């Protein structure tokens, strides 16, 4: 009797089990290799993208939203790795054929990986991603030899962040109370001198002492080099030249700042940002991604930035406005997908493309889509940086090991600032060290 009563129940349970298994089998999983951190504590299940803040928050929320709402039963499986050794691990994964379906990549690295990632021209048409909407900077970043190898995700660049209160105290503001931005090296040195005399504080704060801070000097060097129309590869990509007048001038600006004690010495990233928030100097040199942090700090009464904060593009002290840029982008590594997962990966990329503004708003970078720029400019302080994609510049993709170059140059800039090395000696050292970086290219 009991057996008879239980039989239909058992049948129903088995049916439900098979149905669940069938549904699970129908799911398409794609792996998603990225840095930006993990923040399950704050955003583990959140799908409210508009409320997400920070790179990690936006990225986590976007994946949650996609997994919950996509109609194709696609499941994105993030494979998160620390930013520092990300590329070493990616290299190892490619070598071991353990290749992710979608991976984040700086466009400055694409030249090194062009043989290992798919050309996406056709794929974008298939996925409905309009490559015509790329900003000029984003387009340059993802294009190698006329072909597009990645979906651009943002532009990030180099800025001066101003403590307006200190500029007012030094008498370095215009009629509207906005800081005066120097237009020549001499003008900058004069402003720096005036700042020091009136406030007793250095004009510039720059982090130069931690291993992660060397990129800072490299980015500043590139920006002032590009302002002169200079290049470290004036005669082809087999040999760098750090002894051009433009390169010597770029190193020389740091030397002049250091000699006048107009720039902080020996600070690491934590000390630099803490110093700016505590008003130890007037200008903090760092990236676009810090704007919201400083806006939040300026909104707090009684803080060092409470008399005002603003930002501007890294200033042109020479003949043309240009500035260092890089981009995050998404690539499809070769061998990382099957036809089914490739389609799913492209669907996910299209979803990201549609949410590019969320990344720009919450993640702190400029959008990669030209059509979003007008809205982006309406965000606080962004009107001062919105034009960067039209004049931002990066090393050509023919240059391999670009992070190696950036860090090496940054170390030399740090040597100038912290150890009193001359610009000429820094150029000599960079020249010698570049040989090792170019070996075997």
């Amino acid at each position: 009797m009991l057996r008879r009563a239980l039989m239909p129940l058992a049948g129903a349970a088995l049916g439900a089990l098979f149905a669940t298994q069938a549904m699970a089998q129908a799911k398409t999983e794609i792996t998603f290799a990225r840095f930006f951190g993990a923040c399950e504590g704050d955003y583990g299940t959140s799908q409210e993208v508009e409320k997400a803040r920070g790179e990690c928050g936006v990225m986590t929320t976007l994946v949650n939203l996609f997994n919950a709402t996509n109609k194709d039963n696609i499941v994105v499986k993030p494979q998160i790795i620390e930013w520092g050794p990300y590329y070493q691990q990616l290299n190892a994964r490619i070598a071991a054929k353990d290749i992710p379906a979608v991976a984040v990549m700086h466009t400055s690295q694409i030249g090194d990986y062009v043989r290992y990632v798919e050309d996406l021209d056709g794929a974008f048409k298939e996925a409905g991603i309009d490559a015509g909407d790329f900003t000029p900077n984003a387009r340059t970043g993802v294009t190698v030899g006329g072909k597009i190898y990645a979906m651009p995700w943002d532009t990030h660049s180099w800025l001066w962040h101003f403590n307006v209160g200190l500029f007012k105290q030094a008498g370095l503001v215009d009629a509207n109370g906005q800081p005066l931005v120097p237009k020549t090296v001499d003008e900058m040195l004069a402003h720096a001198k005036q700042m020091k005399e009136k406030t007793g504080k250095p004009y510039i704060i720059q982090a130069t002492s931690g291993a992660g801070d060397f990129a800072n000097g490299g980015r500043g060097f590139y920006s002032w080099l590009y302002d002169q129309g200079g290049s470290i590869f004036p005669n082809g990509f087999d040999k760098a030249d750090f002894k051009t007048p433009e390169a010597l001038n770029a190193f020389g600006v740091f030397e002049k700042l250091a000699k006048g004690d107009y720039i902080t010495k020996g600070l690491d990233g934590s000390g630099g940002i803490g110093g700016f928030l505590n008003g130890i100097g007037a200008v903090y040199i760092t990236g676009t991604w810090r704007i919201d942090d400083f806006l939040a700090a300026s909104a707090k009464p009684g803080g060092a930035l409470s008399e005002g904060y603003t930002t501007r593009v890294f200033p042109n002290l020479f003949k043309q406005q240009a500035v260092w840029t890089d981009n995050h982008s998404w690539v499809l590594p070769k061998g990382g997908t099957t036809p089914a997962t490739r389609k799913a990966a492209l669907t996910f990329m299209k979803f990201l493309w549609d949410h590019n503004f969320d990344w720009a708003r919450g993640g702190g970078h400029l959008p990669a889509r030209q059509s979003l720029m007008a809205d982006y400019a309406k965000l606080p302080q962004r009107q001062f940086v919105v034009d960067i994609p039209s004049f931002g510049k990066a090393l050509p993709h023919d240059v391999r090991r670009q992070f190696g170059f950036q860090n090496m140059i940054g170390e030399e800039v740090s040597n100038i600032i912290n150890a009193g090395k001359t610009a000429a000696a820094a150029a000599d050292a960079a020249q010698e060290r570049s040989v090792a970086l170019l070996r075997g290219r």
Partner: protein
Amino acid sequence: MSTYRQGRSLGDRLLLVAVVALAVIWIAPIVWVVGLSFKPNDVLMRTTGGILFPPFTTKNYADILAASQVFAWMLNSTIVAVGQTVLTLIIASLAGYGFARTNFPGRSALFVVVLAALAVPEQAIIVPLHTMFAAVDLHNTFVALIAPRLAFPFGVLLMTQYFRAIPPEIEEAALLDRASRLKVFWRIVLPLSIPAQATLGTYTFLHAWNEYFWPLVSATKPAMYTLTVGLASMQTNFAQTEGIGFLMAQAVFAGLPVLILYLFFQRHIVSAVAGGPVK
């Protein structure tokens, strides 16, 4: 005890003061790390001083525990560290005993080869090692995480030297009683070598627990991350400026199991650092 205290010379007292001062200097950064781990990140962006004053928070630890896989990573680390320790002890003991007590052709040459391996830096072999494990499709397995570290020349050297220091007469008596070489090793020599085993075991465990680079390139699936790789993966790109409290909490969290191990094996670790096995 009181007699001993009263009998201390001025030199002893000065030495004691110096040791206490050095201990305070040594422990201060650790106290600072623990203090920072209980401070909000936005406060630490402004300053990393003032760890003794509010505000305090446990959010940094809550964020670590919120990671769905953190205990899986801890389990992975435990499996790797324990597995590596046990197997290293077995291999190093057998090899050490072989070098110390048995005669076979080429023994000296082979011992030199083992010692030469001490001079090979890890970075020099990481690429061929990775390629080798990729060829047999073993990445993302415990075998790949444990096996490469089992060839541990220092362990062989340590055990060889220890076995050589044991008087051979002890073994000869057993051999005369017709005990096999294996029985002699198992019943007589191995128990005598427990202090050296503890030293080597502690050293191997700590090394395995703290290892980062090999697990980073071999265990690429999050489910196979060890604690070091998993915790690092949670860091944002700007962790050193905007997430200092979280970084410090990670350091404390990762270090706790090792601290507990230290409390149990303190004597042997001190001996290992001092440069010799406990006798």
